[in-house]
């Protein structure tokens, strides 16, 4: 007899609630997770610097996207101020390390905290505003923060921005692509585990309750104002962390790096990846970060054969970006995460997909 390799629940019995409430309940799934983590931990050893650098950018985007998803996907508060909050994180770390002489290891969490506070401040209108109206309020945050950043010359260096250095431990500097990848990797792992845990405990459930039915949530004893502002706080913390990581990676912060198009890009990540899904944010971040790179290489490939086409194809990049988002909204609003789940579910019943 050939056993269906995808059926893993067979013979798995949980004898107490602790086992039943684990994130990954099945031993073989846990091994698979370990294998994937190990794969990503080892891959810089064989990959080129260019690829490792791309992976670092994907990972940093994923941390920010998870942050945004906590707010928009899980708590239902649309925000188009992510770009600016990334900036707050980047600039906080830049100012603390270059102007005040803090070490990166202190400036880094502080960047998260200060972004969280700024986020919570701009989250206050969420008590009165919902949906699109709140989105416009967060747009105000985007504009105000960018304005302050570009005009407060003495602190932020104005439009020229600030130059950062790579973090150090003792005499070791995270200068190489590989070392910075590992720094990102650790932060990303903590972010993922933290948010997975958050949404299986009290506060995370309350966030989802606020998203699904705010009136019922209030009658269940959830303080709407507190939890909405808290969602802004937690979300902005991770966005700030991502901003600081990005700043120290590119070693420069300047206002045009945090424009509204960055905010839209992050919204696209969680839309394409899957609203209200931690892993969806990861898939979406990788997808949106790599798409221009892939398009670029396709254009390069084609322009070798059709030299005249390059000018046209370069302009097509934005078009393809828009088309992809529309296709996702129409065909799979739950995003890449849902597609992955569908594939898994298909094979769980394979080859008898009609039995259930």
């Amino acid at each position, binding site marked *: 007899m050939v056993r269906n390799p995808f059926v893993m629940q067979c013979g798995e019995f949980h004898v107490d*609630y602790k086992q039943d409430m684990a994130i990954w309940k099945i031993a073989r799934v846990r091994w698979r997770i370990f294998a994937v983590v190990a794969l990503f931990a080892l891959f810089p050893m064989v990959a080129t610097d260019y690829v490792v650098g791309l992976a670092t950018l994907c990972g940093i985007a994923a941390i920010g996207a998870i942050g945004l998803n906590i707010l928009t996907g899980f708590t239902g508060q649309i925000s188009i101020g992510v770009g600016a909050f990334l900036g707050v994180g980047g600039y906080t770390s830049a100012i603390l390390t270059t102007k005040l002489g803090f070490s990166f290891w202190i400036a880094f969490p502080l960047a998260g905290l200060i972004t969280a506070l700024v986020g919570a401040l701009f989250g206050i209108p969420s008590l009165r505003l919902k949906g699109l109206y709140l989105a416009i309020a967060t747009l105000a945050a985007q504009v105000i923060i960018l304005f302050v950043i570009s005009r407060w010359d003495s602190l932020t260096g104005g439009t020229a921005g600030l130059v950062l250095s790579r973090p150090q431990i003792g005499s070791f500097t995270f200068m190489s692509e590989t070392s910075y990848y590992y720094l990102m990797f650790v932060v990303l792992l903590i972010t993922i585990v933290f948010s997975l*845990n958050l949404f299986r405990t009290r506060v*995370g*459930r309350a966030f989802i309750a606020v998203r699904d039915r705010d009136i019922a949530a209030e*009658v*269940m004893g959830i*303080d*709407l104002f507190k939890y909405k502002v808290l969602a802004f706080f*937690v979300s902005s913390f991770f966005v700030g962390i991502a901003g600081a990581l990005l700043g120290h990676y590119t070693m420069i912060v300047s206002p045009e790096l945090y424009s509204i198009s960055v905010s839209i890009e992050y919204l696209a990540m969680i839309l394409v990846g899957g609203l209200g899904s931690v892993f969806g944010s990861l898939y979406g971040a990788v997808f949106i970060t790599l798409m221009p790179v892939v398009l670029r290489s396709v254009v390069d490939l084609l322009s070798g054969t059709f030299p005249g086409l390059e000018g046209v194809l370069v302009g097509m990049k934005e078009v393809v970006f828009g088309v992809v988002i529309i296709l996702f909204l129409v065909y799979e609003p739950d995003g890449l995460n849902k597609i992955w789940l569908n594939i898994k579910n298909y094979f769980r019943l394979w080859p008898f997909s009609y039995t259930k």
Partner: protein
Amino acid sequence: MGILNVQNVSIRFGGVLALDAVSFEVKEGEIFSLIGPNGAGKTSMLNCISGLYKPTEGDIFFKGERITHIKPHKRAALGIARAFQNIELFPHLSVLDNLMLGRHVRMKTGVLAGGFYWGKAQKEEVEHRYKVEEVIDFLELEHVRNVPVGTLSYGLQKRVEVGRALAMEPDLLLLDEPMAGMNNEEKEDMARYIIDIHEEKKTTIILIEHDMGVVMDLSNHIAVLDFGKLIAYGTPKEVQTNPRVIEAYLGEEHAV
């Protein structure tokens, strides 16, 4: 002094006086029914009690404390739970998570403890899981424990709605038409659950229901509202024979 005292509560929406100086008392441990024709102000009354509406005039006392201006979430912590008329469950969450949300006010875990799932947070989750499993057992929801609520049948959703309120271990349970739209079998089940809740958990229940058979069989006391006014109060027998109630339900000619 009853567990809930409603004193002269009026509420006005523009030109409509939805509740007009309504007063009544709910005694501890009883099933108290609020009946009346459509638009009589029954749900408005429940909204005043659970805090979604603020009365224009009058006061509400719960366990001797004035709660007229307290926010809904604080009333939940005081021990008032509610099941809604139109199902207000969290559709994407499983039955288990919906019920765990009922435990919200009784739990403490914050963002940090929850995010790192420290020993204490984990212990608390497990402890409250036991309480939730009791409710699941009580309402016979075992087979749908892990199913997203949105995919359940209407009757089951209604039961989960009651279960979520019950998971709060309330002192006062507000049930807004728990049997609306159910067939006879489902109604009988629900009536049995309500009696069980009342007898086993000694919970005080305020019930809004249109099925007079159910109301007359279950209630200790009944208050009748008509156009926002309290027109009768008493035991089922007293209310049934009250001419003003007959008039409100059947029209003037029958009353004579």
